[in-house]
Structure formats: C-alpha cells, structure tokens
C-alpha cells in the first residue's frame, strides 16, 4: 500500500536527516536508531519478515547501544561547527550530480527491463534451508569473522585494563572506565580466559 510506504519512507528520511544535522551527538545517535527502525519497516512492508526483524534485533538492539557507548566514552557531545558551511553548496551540487548519473544508469540498464518473477513467500524455514545448504560457506566465514572480532575485542580490553591498572590511580578517575569493567570482570578472577 503506497500510504504505508510513504509514511515509513518519510520517517526514515526524516530520522536520517536529523541524524546528520542535529547538534547534540546523542540526539544524532537516537535519530540513527529511528532510521534503523524505518528501514526495518521497509523490509517488513516488502514481506521479508526475517530480515526486518533481524534488522531490529541487531541494529536497534545492539548497534545503537554500541554507537551510544562510543559517544559516551569519547565525551564529545556538542558539536560547535555551524550547520551550513561554505562547502555546503558545492557538496550538494556534487551529490545531486552523482545521484543523477546513478539514476540515469539504473534506468537505462537492461536489469530494470526484465520482468520480475513472482516473489516467493520467504518463510524462515526456506531461509534456514538455504543458509545450511547453498550459503553455508559464507555463514561459516562470517562466524569465524565474528569470533575473531570478539576475541580481538576481549584482548584489546584486557590490555587496556592492565595498562590502566599499572598507571597512576588518578588517570583512572577522569576516564569513565565503568563500561569496560562492566563488560569484562576484573582480571583477578577472569585470568586469561
């Protein structure tokens, strides 16, 4: 239904514009979460239940938190730059030009002219089946990648912690170190796990 799509699209674009132009960084992060929700709405409207819900779970539930933590740890709330600068008009011009070229290329390409096959009703079962048969290699590679990232994060955090333990006590007080010590218990108990 075009009405639903219009509403979702307006919400997404408005949140995206807000994420770019708001002064307060935390507001920007929250507007970004709004964009993610809008995008999930687009997926759901297209009938892709699994992808839409996974989008909410991963992006709104985890990535937004990550972004917010990153903002908190760097403590750079207020941006003092003006919203519009000298380069704004030039950049708008370049963006419009690039977008125009892309749209012209897509419209002219033969891919648009092909008639689409009727969309299959993507059930979760079929996604699961194809993940385990066709796409098992990308799945395993992604799993390895995520495991490596997890281990890397733990190692970096551990090093960071042992470094702050060795430094003077004062430097620990002006840096909000609770997030790292919450996510990773004190090394006296954890050891090298």
């Amino acid at each position, binding site marked *: 239904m075009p009405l639903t799509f219009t509403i979702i699209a307006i919400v997404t674009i408005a949140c995206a514009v807000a994420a770019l132009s708001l002064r*307060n960084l*935390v*507001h920007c992060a*929250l507007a970004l*979460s709004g964009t993610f929700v809008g995008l999930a709405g687009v997926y759901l409207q297209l009938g892709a*239940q*699994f992808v839409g*819900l*996974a989008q*909410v*779970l991963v992006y*709104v*539930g*985890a990535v*937004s*938190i990550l972004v*917010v933590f990153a903002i*908190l740890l760097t403590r750079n709330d207020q941006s003092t730059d003006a919203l519009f600068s000298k380069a704004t008009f030039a950049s708008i011009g370049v963006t419009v030009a690039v977008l125009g070229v892309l749209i012209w290329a897509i419209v002219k390409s033969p891919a648009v002219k092909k008639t689409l096959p009727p969309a299959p009703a993507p*059930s*979760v*079962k079929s996604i699961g089946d194809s993940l385990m048969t066709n796409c098992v290699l990308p799945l395993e590679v992604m799993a390895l990648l995520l495991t490596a990232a997890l281990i890397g994060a733990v190692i970096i955090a551990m090093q960071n912690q042992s470094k702050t333990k060795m430094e003077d006590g004062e430097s620990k007080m002006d840096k909000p170190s*609770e*997030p790292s010590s*919450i*996510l990773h*218990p*004190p090394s006296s*108990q954890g050891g090298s*796990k």
Partner: protein
Amino acid sequence: MTEALDQIFVTLKHWLVSLCPAEFQVLASIVLSVAPILMVFPGLFALVTVIERKGLGRIQNRYGPNRVGPFGFLQFVADGIKALIKEDVVPRRADKVIHFLAPLALVLPCVVVYAVLPFGRNMTLTELDAGLLFFFAVGASTELAVFMAGWSSRNKYSLFGAMRAIAQMISYEIPLILSAVSVVMIAGSLSLPKIVAAQGTYGGWLPDWFVFTPWGLAGFLLFMIAASAESNRAPFDLPEGESEIIAGYYIEYSGFKFALFFLGEYLGLFAISGLAITLFLGGWNAPLESLAWIPSWAWFFTKLIALILLFIWTRGTLPRLRQDQLMNFAWKFMLPLTLINLVAAALWHYIPAGFTRWFMCGLMVVGPYCLLGRGIAGKDKTSKRVYRFAD
C-alpha cells in the same frame, strides 16, 4: 459446550466485526483484537502490584497494604491517583525531549510484544512466521529506552544505573535467546502457535511439554533466570538498586512518567512469562487430557499467574547480586550451559524414545551444571581474616 467457552472471545469478536459496515471491518477487527490486550494486561499489572506487595509482606512477616479497599486490593487506585497528581519535575539541565520520550520508548515495545503471544486456541493477535524473532527483536529495543532515561536526566547516578542496566540486559539476552533456540530446533518453527501445537500431545503420564525433558527443564530454568535479569527484577535489580542508588536510571522521573516506567517493566515481565509458558510450559494446553475441558485461555492465565507468583517469591527470597557477580554468572555459567543445552536438545531429537535418551541428555545437562557450579562457587573462597593489632 466447552468448545464454545474456549472460543468465546473469538466468536464474540467475529460477531462484533460483522456488525460493522463492510469498509470498516478490517479496522474494527484490528481494534477489537488490540483493545482486550490493552485492557487485560494493565489490569493484571494493577492487580499484581498489590499482590506483590502483600505477598512480599507476608514473606517478611508483616501485612502488606490492607487499608484501601477490601484487604487492600484497591491500593492500585490510590497509587494511580498519586502518580497522576504528582508534580512532574524535570531537572533544569535535563535533555527535555529525550526525557519525555524515554518512558514512551520503554512502554511501547513492551506493549507491542503481546502481538505474537498465543493466549488461547486461535487467540494470537498476529500469527507471524517469525513470531519468536519478533518478540526478541522488539524486546531488545527496550534497552535503548533505558539508556535514554539514564542519559537525559543529566545525573551521574542515573547514568550509572543506565550503564549497569544496559550491560546486564545485553549480557542476559544471549542465554535468553539461546535457551529459546533449543525449543525452536525441536519444534521446527519460529512461529509461536506452531510451538504450542507441538506440545499439544499427551504421551505417557506427563504431557509433552518441553519442560518435562532434561534439556527443556534446563532451558526453562535458564530462561527464567535470564528473564528476571532482562526485567531488572530481584535478584538482578542492581540497576534499580532500591537501597543503593535509589531508583537507578529513573531517579529523576516523578509522577506519571515513573508510573509508566513501572508499567513498562511489569508488562515486560508478563510478556516474557507468557513467552516462557509458550515455549516450555505448553502454552494454552492443559496438563492432563482429562482437564482439557477447561478453556485454553484459562490455562494460559493460570500458568501466567503461577509464574508471576514464582517471580514474586524469588524476589522475596534472594539477595541482590553485585554487578560483577551478575556478569560472571551470565558469561561464565549461563552461556556455556545454554550451548550445551543446544547439543543436548539435538541429541534428544536423534536418540529414539526410551530410557537411554533420558539418561544421556540428563547427564549432558546435569554434569556441566555441577562442574561449572563448583568452578563458580569456589572462586570467592575467603580465608580467615588476620588482624595486625587487635586479637
């Protein structure tokens, strides 16, 4: 007759929808499906606040509230009036927009999540193919609201509480989802009505609920522990920390917004109890075939009330866990157990029915529990304190 009683709400809704003119029927159907949920669960919330206070009181050798109404059961009316007429204090330096939106952002996902729970036979609001994923996805959105509440108050204690709460919720989401995944594996579907239907048979003297299998029992216990952590309920209520940081991330909220936080928390608790019932306790199925004449929605709500009483009982018993104990518990105890539970569930599926599979799966579940338990329990061995000067 029992069929009619079982489907009474469904037939009522269909009849009311048929009374509307044709072009409004879709809208009427939606409204008539949503309105009962919005009436029943906040009503249950009101009742449960009173029951919880009275129950906790009795556990603590005292009466609960017993002045307002018969035996104090109208206390929620007094609480509601108080919340509504209290002055809404917003700190001067607070981020007004986010401060205003945070309670809404908490309550909305907690209400939306009821859309996929099967309350009875044919009584699910939307039968999504990926219903369980919907539940977890929307439930994960509450963390953002917690952060918004903590951040916008411009209060260090509030931010503290919010950080702890988020860390706790993220850590316990993994055991929560993984213990549900073992159910999905066996039932073969993410759709909640199908999972309930998979537990509808009565083989032997126990119904075929997943809780009556070794991996199901372990999964149920892990799910309940993770659920109480997700709802910030004792013994995991350090972010709320009533005796330490007063109210944690909702310190600066007063009046109706505080009531909304409270509402959101309890609604989330009911929803996750409902999910536990759907996944492990057989949903709306009766425990014995002879009792199947009682309507399905009655069974669902009976089980829901039983689980809520269990939560209240646990709250009155256990002391609060410290933050690092909480985290240790999630990452070092519950996560390995849920992973082993997955393997146990798979073994259960492949070994044919009989004593062997009970023994194997039971061993797979109990063994690591004891070993890990010993590992965790032995960590904090404190030696007898030696005093230098006093003796």
